[in-house]
């Protein structure tokens, strides 16, 4: 291995990246864009969901209940209507996620002490949202119900017995239960996948397409020197982007960072080796830019997005998929990111992820070096 030759290739690659506005865009703008997109755009928290209300009673009590809906941060009463058709229309065209209907004898039955039912019509297209909304609605109604019981007991000169059982919750790691804290660390895996696999697969396939690879391999430069020389600049860029993304996460989105920065860098370096090797391997096999970038997206970006636990919890996937995720390097990296950022898990307890990632890095790097020969066939 000659350092002179390796550096000659690396230097040329750097100049080409700096001179090509598209790769420069991917390296500089894309990480920040992805961070902002996922930081602001993907919000799994349900807050201020639009609801319509149809108050058939129009009494003091029914207004009290509606005020409780109004003041809850989960709901936003966007319209008070006077009939079912309006609610149906609103659910149809998505102006409301839920309609609350208060019966005409609401206050009367409350006075009589009889059971009262409040109707909630829910848009069940998104089952998850619907379930959560139903839960919130029940909580609001139960809160009002408890208030009424309390008032009745007070009026009758009795004091309230404390409830025998209650759950005292304390949330760890993501104290405010912000979904952005859950999502943002994982964005790093997406960024790495794009920089690593997508960009490198393009740059090597381009050499085959333009014929410059033929000139390159006619010189004494070895296959290893070409590979390391071409990948080194992308490794540096990838590490740079890791830092940029981490800083955006910590200082812009206020995602807690409790772990070791060194461990974050080591994990990112391992994952970068994985995606760079994959990108290199793909471009050797595909040899055209178009095929290479398609395959690269398919084998790195998509699994990182869907199966890594980035957005969707692996524990909730069907067992078959759960097993498949074990052969996805992105899964281990995303898990590391979440533990390092949110939990601050000591490095010694991260071997369950670090070791598989290191094995992937080693095997794929070996595969990449073996796949590339200095021959035209």
């Amino acid at each position, binding site marked *: 291995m000659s350092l*002179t030759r390796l550096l*000659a*290739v690396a230097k040329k690659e750097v100049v080409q990246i700096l001179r090509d506005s598209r790769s420069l865009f991917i390296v500089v703008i894309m990480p920040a864009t992805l961070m902002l997109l996922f930081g602001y755009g993907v919000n799994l928290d349900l807050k201020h969901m639009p609801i319509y209300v149809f108050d058939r009673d129009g009494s003091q009590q029914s207004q009290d209940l509606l005020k409780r809906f109004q003041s809850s941060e989960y709901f936003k009463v966007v319209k008070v209507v006077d009939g079912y058709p309006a609610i149906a229309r609103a659910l149809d065209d998505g102006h409301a996620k839920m309609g609350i209907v208060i019966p005409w004898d609401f206050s009367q039955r409350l006075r009589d002490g009889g059971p009262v039912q409040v109707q909630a019509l829910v848009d069940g297209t998104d089952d998850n949202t619907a379930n959560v909304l139903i839960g919130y609605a029940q909580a609001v109604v139960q809160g009002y119900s408890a208030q009424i019981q309390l008032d009745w007991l007070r009026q009758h000169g009795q004091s309230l017995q404390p409830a025998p059982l209650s759950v005292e919750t304390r949330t760890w790691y993501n104290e405010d239960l912000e979904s952005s804290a859950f999502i943002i660390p994982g964005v790093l895996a997406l960024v790495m996948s794009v920089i690593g696999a997508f960009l490198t697969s393009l740059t090597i396939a381009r050499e085959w397409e*333009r014929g*410059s690879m*033929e*000139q390159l391999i*006619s010189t004494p430069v070895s296959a290893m020197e070409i590979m390391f020389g071409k990948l080194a600049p992308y490794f540096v860029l990838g590490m740079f982007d890791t830092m940029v993304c981490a800083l955006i996460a910590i200082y812009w989105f206020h995602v807690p960072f409790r772990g070791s920065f060194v461990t974050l860098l080591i994990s990112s370096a391992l994952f970068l080796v994985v995606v760079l090797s994959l990108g290199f391997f793909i471009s050797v096999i595909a040899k055209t830019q178009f095929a290479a970038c398609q395959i690269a997206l398919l084998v790195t970006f998509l699994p990182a997005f869907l199966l890594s636990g980035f957005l969707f919890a692996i524990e909730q996937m069907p067992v078959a998929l759960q097993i498949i995720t074990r052969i996805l390097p992105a899964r281990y990296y995303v898990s590391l990111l979440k533990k390092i950022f949110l939990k601050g898990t000591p490095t010694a307890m991260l071997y369950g992820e670090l070791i598989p990632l290191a094995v992937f890095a080693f095997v794929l790097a070996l595969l990449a070096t073996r796949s590339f020969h*200095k021959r035209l*066939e």
Partner: protein
Amino acid sequence: MPDQENSVVVENLVKRFGTFVAVDRLCLEIRKGEVFGFLGPNGAGKSTTIRMLCGLLKPTSGRALVAGFDVARKPESVRQNIGYMSQKFSLYNDLKVIENLHLFAGLYSVPRDKLKERIEWALSMANLKGQENLITGTLPGGWKQRMALGCAVLHKPPVIFLDEPTSGVDPISRRQFWDLIHQMAEEGVTVFVTTHYMEEAEYCNRLALIFRGKMVALGTPSELKRDSMKGELLLIECEPLSKALEALQSAPDVSDAAVFGNALHLVVKDAAEAMPRMKQYLAGRAIAVNRIEQIRPSLEDVFVSLTTARDAAEEVKA
């Protein structure tokens, strides 16, 4: 064992792609300091041969030594001792001239203390002094070719391989490029160059004519012109040309007839004897002969004659 006399030795070299035989039992010996031309139509196997000699393709069978090293066994030693210019211009268009030169100087491990001198030399050779900071892609074709040559010889290789170096380049640039080739040959560099331009072939010390993977003739341009023609050559200027061609192709004693410019070239056994007969033959068909004389064959005549002979032989076999 390094050959003292020969820079390139090729013995029974064969390259097959599936059932297609691209290069068929090629044998060559190229002397040190020789400008050796490899002449043939597109698809004849010229690039395949040159790629095998540069270690880019593995020969199916046979052996080739370049600068004393076996191309199949020691491709890396071969590569350190050759310069190669592929058929398609393949330097980096998005790099500056100087950046391309630095890249190849690095790839060939030109020592640091020689770097400046070698790059200066390459720039002046390619006549690109003062243009170092131009983006390579913006250079005209002739400049690019000279620059590619400059990059290929930065490490002073004893052998250089040029695959159709002047295709798509204007005649003046082509001439300049050949001056460079001869300059290098004078310094002792062996030059192996493929071309399909006949006039370029004249600039070579020796030529191999290759057709459908096989070598059909080998020699100096004058040897080829003298020995390879089956007969002598007549030039006839007459009117109408196409009618004359048709008539002559079926005339007795004429083994070949072809249009060259505004005249016909005929291959006959004995020129002196054929001249009056041809005049008579054409006059009998109401074709006016303006001029008829014996000429020395050009390489193109030789090439056409050899390949049509080969075609005819293959047709008979088939």
